[in-house]
């Protein structure tokens, strides 16, 4: 299934590897931070509604 | 207005700084380059105009954080913001004081350093001219960077990071003038572009700097 890349296989593969790797890192970091901040905010909001005078 | 300029110059002189030290730094960079790249005259002569421009730029850069940091720390900037001086004037005067204490001495001393770097004979005029036209832009841009980072404790390196990309066009055209001059080529085009950048920066950037400074004082 792998296409014949010839003598440039290293270059092409490393270009794809590096780029996709970077994109994956960026996406993972964004998702991770999104989750964390969402959870933290939920905690703070919960504390607020609890403690707030009615 | 003039009082602020005079005060800044006085402070630069008294603080054991100003004139002497900018020059000294320039000198030392020029001296270190041969140590770093080796002493062949041919090689040095080729890189001389560029390295001299680079040295001038770094000397400028190093003294940028003086522009506002001291006045910020001791509260003078707050007091000045409430004084009857428009912020734009303050910023412009600060840039002028910086140029007078750093840029001007560099321009005057450049031929001497050219000698150290075996600059070819035709190069001197153009080197000096390009520095004279280019360094004001460096001061004005630097003032903008200093205004951006004034609230941040010891923003020195951040300042460099922000300012250096802004310096790129000036450096390219300035070094190009000096290099072409040294090789006896035509210099009109880069010289005009350099002058354009300087005029543009002087005309427009003080407004940006003043705005930024006002935000930082909030």
């Amino acid at each position, binding site marked *: 299934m792998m296409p014949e890349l010839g003598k440039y296989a290293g270059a092409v593969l490393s270009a794809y590897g590096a780029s996709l790797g970077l994109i994956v890192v960026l996406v993972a970091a964004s998702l991770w931070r999104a989750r964390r901040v969402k959870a933290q905010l939920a905690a703070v909001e919960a504390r*607020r*509604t609890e403690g*707030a*005078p*009615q | 207005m*003039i*009082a*602020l300029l005079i*005060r800044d110059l*006085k*402070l630069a002189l*008294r*603080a054991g700084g100003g004139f002497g030290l900018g020059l000294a730094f320039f000198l030392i960079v020029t001296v270190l380059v041969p140590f770093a790249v080796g002493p062949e005259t041919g090689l040095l002569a080729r890189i001389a105009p560029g390295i001299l421009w680079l040295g001038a730029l770094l000397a400028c850069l190093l003294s940028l954080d003086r522009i506002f940091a001291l*006045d910020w*720390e*001791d*509260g*003078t*900037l*707050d*007091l*000045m*913001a*409430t*004084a*009857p*001086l428009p912020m734009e004037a303050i910023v412009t005067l600060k840039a002028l004081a910086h140029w007078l204490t750093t840029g001007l001495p560099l321009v005057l001393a450049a031929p001497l350093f050219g000698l150290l770097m075996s600059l070819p004979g035709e190069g001197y005029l153009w080197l000096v001219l390009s520095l004279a036209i280019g360094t004001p832009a460096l001061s004005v841009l630097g003032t903008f960077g200093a205004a951006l980072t004034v609230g941040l404790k010891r923003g020195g390196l951040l300042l460099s990071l922000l300012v250096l990309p802004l310096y790129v066009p000036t450096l390219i055209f300035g070094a190009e003038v000096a290099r072409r001059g040294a090789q006896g080529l035509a210099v009109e085009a880069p010289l005009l572009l350099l002058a354009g950048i300087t005029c543009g920066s002087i005309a427009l950037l003080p407004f940006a700097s003043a705005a930024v400074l006002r935000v930082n*004082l*909030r």
Partner: protein
Amino acid sequence: MSLTIKDLAIARGGIPVLRGLSFSLAAGEALILRGPNGIGKTTLLRTIAGLQPPLAGEISADRELIAYAAHADGIKATLSVEENLRFWAAIYGTGDITPALEGFDLTKLTDRPAGGLSAGQKRRLGLARLMVTGRPIWVLDEPTVSLDVASVALFAQAVQRHLAGGGMALIATHIDLGLDAQVLDVTPFKARAPLRGEDDFDEAFL
């Protein structure tokens, strides 16, 4: 000429600290602000001096009439006492600095570099700056810090002379200055966390 504050709300670091503050000062009057540490006096004075925008409310006086003195004095260590004062006099376009020097007992120190002054001497120099601004409304943040008893009295005299000449003074302080002036305690105006469901700003995260 007067200074009127109406329903002022102020914030520091994006957080409201005081709200609903109103008072007014007429020519010849002084007002002393009191309140515990961290209540927001400095923030209030900075807002009145025009260094930061208020959250809400109005400040009647023109910024051009106000002379502000902060916690920090803005003194240059390498300039002499005289040079420091002359600089401010030039900036404000007023001429003579002798009354200021005399008013704060600095005549003996004129030629000394300001960096070599003691804490209290520096403060006196900082206060002398007010007299060369020639501005009618003094806005002072803890002016008597580090001053000895005699210097506090000098300061009180200077304020009284300023008031007698039709000036005004707004002073935040923790200690007694020996001035007869109204006192305003800002503690009741402390901004409280808004109640549930009460979102008093346009943007939902404020």
